[in-house]
């Protein structure tokens, strides 16, 4: 049976299937796994790992990422949050008296790239009615230039689609082993529901790729993750 990390990677791979260029950070082993899965399936997708230790793609320093994104050369990016609210605002600064590391590039990247919000923890602590600090807004008025923005919110228990016109999340699917009632109960913001499916299980063919070529390509930059999920040392 597939682990939850493998399931989440497969969901992300479906969400970004049309990508030509995706950037992933050091804290994003599951999105990186999704990208490698697409590559293993023969998709000609360019994956830029920001903290790649050997053979890093940047030659102009860390600022080059933002130049690339600012020109529209990166299709998808991933952001998380100490808090995420029903307007798709994210908070990486402070919550409930606790200080978090900070906003990083979010206030720029969320505008420049189609963004998958990804946070494994699904709780009322994280998914709140209103964030305490807006690191990056989920929505901008029409006069503000904005190429990118939220596409979906994926957690360890469910997948929400962002409805840009309604400025609300729509619960699309609930992962195997979880129920819609449970998701309603642990989500702090209001969202829409229509026909909620069960998130498609990981196909045997994908699982074989994940545990073979994908795992081997992930291990060098995400050693802890590869050890934990696939037992690779």
């Amino acid at each position: 049976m597939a682990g939850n990390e493998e399931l989440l990677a497969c969901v992300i791979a479906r969400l970004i299937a049309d990508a030509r260029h995706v950037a992933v950070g050091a804290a994003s082993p599951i999105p990186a796994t999704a990208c490698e899965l697409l590559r293993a399936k023969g998709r000609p997708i360019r994956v830029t790992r920001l903290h790649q230790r050997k053979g890093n793609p940047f030659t102009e320093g860390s600022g080059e990422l933002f130049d690339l994104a600012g020109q529209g050369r990166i299709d998808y990016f991933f952001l998380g949050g100490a808090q995420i609210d029903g307007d798709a605002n994210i908070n990486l600064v402070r919550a409930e008296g606790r200080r978090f590391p900070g906003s990083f590039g979010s206030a720029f990247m969320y505008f420049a790239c189609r963004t998958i919000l990804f946070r494994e923890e699904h709780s009322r602590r994280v998914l709140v009615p209103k964030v305490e600090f807006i690191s990056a807004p989920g929505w901008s008025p029409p006069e503000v230039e904005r190429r990118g923005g939220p596409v979906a919110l994926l957690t360890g228990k469910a997948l929400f689609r962002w409805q840009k016109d309604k400025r609300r999340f729509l619960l699309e699917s609930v992962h195997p082993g979880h129920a819609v009632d449970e998701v309603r109960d642990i989500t702090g913001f209001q969202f829409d529901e229509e026909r909620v499916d069960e998130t498609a299980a990981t196909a045997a063919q994908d699982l074989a790729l994940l545990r073979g070529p994908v795992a081997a390509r992930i291990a060098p930059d995400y050693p802890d993750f590869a050890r934990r999920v696939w037992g690779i040392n």
Partner: protein
Amino acid sequence: MSAVDALVEHIADGAFIALPPDYSLPAMDAVRALIRRRVSKLRLLGVPVLGLSADLLIGAGCVAEVHSSAVSLGEAGLAPRFSEAAEHGEIKVVDYTCPAVHTALQATEKGVPFMPLRGVIGSDLTRGRSDWQIAQNPFAGGKDPILLVSALVPDIALFHARWGDEAGNVWVGRRRELATIAHAARNTYVTVEELRPGDMLEDELLAPGVISSTYVSGIARAERGAWPLGVADVYGIDDAHLAAYAAAAKTREGFRRYLDEFVWQGTKSSLPA
């Protein structure tokens, strides 16, 4: 007095000091020397984020302000001394977003008072600050608000480099954000892994990775000077040490013991490079 101790004598209390992230050649020996010198009231600028260097300086009581897009130990987790100092109001924190730091330094590099940056509008980062303004794009036909970021001039840039040469140049390779910091800062001090004879600008293969002596105020040799962080192709990041630090620094007592061993006594890893 060691060469590194002498170098950091140039860094005054209260200086506005630009530092690179953990992955981009931090001058850790110089940071340890600053703590031993009991420097105080530093105003740190993270270009664009900060890690271990900032956490050490904050925990040791050397810092008044942190201007950064984030302070974190990466895979090793939250920066515990930063988090606690921020939560208790012991330091002033001015939050940025990464490209705004680059943009503010690029403005200084070009000698212009501000530069525009897309995005950011609607973020709480823009609230209550006089150094950012939202203005109308004067070239647009219709409404087009855009953020203007005023230039930032660090007093000091401090980082590590693979090589320094007889001409006073330093080689940072692909870490070109360090060139931007050096161009923007009033004074740039660099610790170097190795000193080499001659002038690297005369070597066509090395020259693109060089920061010219025009921008460099002082150099000091510091072997394994970035440890426990890395220098590409020389030594890697000491992940085990960072994890041990993250655990120790969760308490003030654990942090004090860490300082005793690795800053005051100056123990360095015996791991092979």
